């Protein structure tokens, strides 16, 4: 058995990635003329759309590196048959990270106080009290450090993986040393991840939009949302490559496990959603319910329930069955649905806080999202051509070959 190790980007793939990126660019331009040049509220919508789209897709592609590092620390062998796919997706953290950075900085330096009220606190005592955390300098410094940390540590992890291709088969001792080395860098990434995605960053970038409101669950909730979407994205790429005759070592067993991850983390997301919502609803303190008031009882009611239907009910009912996790078509459908569902979740987290009185979800939102999807395709596609699709010398690869779920 020989492997097709070299990925060649199909012309159609390339064309679509370009078209989608073009759609994104055009949408931003049109959006700028429609909203960006308008009054403050329209301006806030323009920037809000850029904010939630860029951060959503950034966290989603970053989840691929989280997946790599978490499975490295857990010494998981099963995922090695598609390891290079996760790596390629994580490359997209670089362009999207830079774009997000530009958008975030533009928000702060452009004094977008309709999004970040804390930029102009006036004599608001609560916001003034938070000044040590909510101030432009800290925001910029922490954003730089966060994104640079993800990019650099991720690059390091990919480099360690690439080194394998240049070497021959590893002996037992070399294998142990290799595993040790990836574990060290993987844990550094995870620690940085815990300090950013699982705590500070969602507070800073998103929660501070409602500058008075707070919820300790917020960051873990954001993490769960982006992680399950990240798994869905990886599944899509794996199935695409598989359908084009690559990834010979991947079979239904691996897809079944990816399906289990999607199922399990959809439930986990729901668990965090419920815990946050129920506790706020139950205690019924106005300072806290202010966040959900217009989402549950106001204009966002439809989106509120849509969120639950797509991200909880659909995975629960559809992915529960064993056969549906082994069915390519259903998995593709569910992956797309989950990616869309959590995009909607991010939409309501950001836009629901910026524009509380009316819901505006139109081609502008979808166009910008399309641009990021094109960018991910372009970036991950290029990354896939750079290296062998099989991590041939990885000590655990053979476990993945005979993997049986």
């Amino acid at each position, binding site marked *: *058995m*020989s*492997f097709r190790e070299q990925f060649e980007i199909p012309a159609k793939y390339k064309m679509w990635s370009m078209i989608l990126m073009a759609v994104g660019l055009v949408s931003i331009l049109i959006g700028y003329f429609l909203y960006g040049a308008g009054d403050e509220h329209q301006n806030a919508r323009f920037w809000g759309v850029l904010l939630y789209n860029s951060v959503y897709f950034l966290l989603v592609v970053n989840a691929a590196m989280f997946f790599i590092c978490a499975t490295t*620390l857990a*010494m998981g*062998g099963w995922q090695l048959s598609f390891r290079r796919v996760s790596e390629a997706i994580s490359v997209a953290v670089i362009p999207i990270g830079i774009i997000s950075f530009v958008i975030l900085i533009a928000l702060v330096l452009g004094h977008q106080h309709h999004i970040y009220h804390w930029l102009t606190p006036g004599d608001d*005592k*609560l916001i003034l*009290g*938070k000044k040590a*955390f909510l101030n432009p300098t800290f925001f910029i410094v922490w954003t730089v450090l966060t994104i640079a940390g993800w990019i650099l540590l991720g690059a390091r992890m990919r480099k360690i993986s690439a080194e394998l291709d240049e070497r021959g*088969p590893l002996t*037992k001792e070399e*294998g*142990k040393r290799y*595993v040790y080395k990836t574990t060290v860098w993987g*844990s550094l990434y995870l620690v940085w991840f*815990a300090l950013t995605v*699982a*705590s500070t960053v969602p*507070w800073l970038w998103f929660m501070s939009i409602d500058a008075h409101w*707070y*919820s*300790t*669950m*917020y*960051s*873990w909730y954001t993490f769960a949302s982006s992680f399950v979407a990240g798994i869905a994205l990886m599944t899509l790429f794996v199935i695409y490559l598989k359908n084009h005759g690559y990834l*010979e*070592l991947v*079979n239904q067993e691996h897809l079944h496990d990816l399906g*289990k991850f999607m199922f399990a983390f959809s*439930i986990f997301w729901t*668990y*965090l959603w419920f*815990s*946050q919502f129920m*506790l*706020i609803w*139950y*205690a019924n*303190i106005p*300072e806290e319910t202010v966040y959900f008031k217009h989402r549950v009882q106001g204009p966002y009611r439809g989106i509120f329930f849509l969120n639950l239907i797509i991200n909880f009910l659909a995975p629960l009912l559809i992915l529960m069955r064993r056969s549906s996790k082994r069915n390519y078509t259903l998995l593709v459908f569910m992956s797309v649905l989950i990616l869309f569902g959590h995009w909607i979740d991010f939409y309501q987290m950001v836009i629901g806080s910026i524009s509380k009185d009316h819901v505006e979800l139109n081609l502008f939102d979808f166009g910008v999202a399309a641009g990021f999807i094109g960018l991910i395709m372009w970036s991950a596609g290029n990354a896939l051509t750079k290296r062998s699709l*099989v991590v*041939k010398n990885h*000590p*655990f*690869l*053979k*476990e993945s*070959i*005979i993997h*049986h*779920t």
Partner: protein
Amino acid sequence: MASLRYESQVREPLVTGTKTYHDVTQDIVRPIEMKPSFLWKVGFTISVLLLLFGVYSVYREVVYGIGEWNLNKTIGWGWDITNFVWWVGIGHAGTLISAILLLFRQGWRTGVNRAAEAMTIFAVMCAGQFPIFHMGRVWMAFFVLPYPNTRGPLWVNFSSPLLWDVFAISTYFTVSLLFWYSGLLPDIATVRDRAREKWRKHMYGVLSFGWTGSTKHWQRHEALSLVLAGLSTPLVLSVHTIVSFDFATSVIPGWHTTIFPPYFVAGAIFSGFAMVQTLLIITRKVLNLEDYITMEHIEVMNKVIVLTGSIVGVAYITELFISWYGQNVYEMAAFQNRWDLSTPYGWSYWLMMGCNVLAPQFFWFRKLRRNLLFTFFMSIIVNVGMWFERFVIIVTSVYRDYIPSSWSTYYAPTIWEVGFYLGTFGLFFTCFFLFAKYFPVIAIAEIKHILKKNGESFKENMVEEERATPEKFAHEHAH
């Protein structure tokens, strides 16, 4: 050929030495067939004495009332609920090991799952005592059961998390017991088949439910395990989630915070693994089971401890940060009552931080993860820390009420409060000693299941597969 039993040579074996199937049976069943050792008798006696002291302490409380404890006007929950949460938390490792790690196909669970599941059951038994006796009029305990009754329209309060606790924990206990016992069946049958004495044959015969080891039995057994694992997985999360609701649904500053559910679950697993380490480090030594509960097992569990300890750490710091970020004076005051060392209970907060967040960070180092003495020491530290976590959450959040006139006097437990706690240790260890004497502490059948893949001597036969190129290997073995 999907049935190839191969794993990378880079992984440490899970059964060391040159063991055959027969050796496995022999090694694990031997302690059951021998007379109890002197050490066992000493340990058992101490446990029973502790249990008796506990029974007397509870007797005082039942006869003279809650006044036997030092609970006071703002501290309505003290040691009792602290102990309750602590014991429930400990149980979680067993369920995680038996259910979630089964779904994750972690081979190392086979060495530790049986003892961990037993620990779960005993820990939940201990936990249950506290809310029951805290009722004061314990003979009314059946009031928590919702049934059409003769007390008029008097029903339990369905919107109270305390009632959800009743359901959650009784479900948890039932499923854990079923899981543990159905796993025991093949092993009990093994003990039965080896028995020489008549009474032993009879006793284990009854307990094994007529297990014959036929294919059909195995098939159903495996299916049942998976179903129970599927049921137990949400239970691992739900039980401590609901315990956290006991606090978080309230509007008490320090209790009402949305991160409580997942953070309680992480903390529960953290303390549970520490207790598994405490028990197994002793058990493997006393029963000579070092080949089955290897350093690899100890190390992996230490990894879980550093992971969950760090998750708990992120949660502590999140809580502390948000109490400031929220700029709510009551929240800030509640947290100052914790971190400020000049407050009466400030010391307990830092003890908790030291034991649960800082101390486990030593386990980033492989040498320390594989050091038995250090691991044992750490397992105690973590359990002390986790006890103080609950103490901090409960006592420091309620001892200063909204008006200083109702700030309580310093709360310290009476001897009977401590005695009740010690008594549950007695109960726990009495049960564990009996278990270790009469049941196989390691799942024999499951060890045999992984032996040819993870056993040291069998792994050595895999050298050829290890050397094969991925292409050749895939050609021969991929399915």
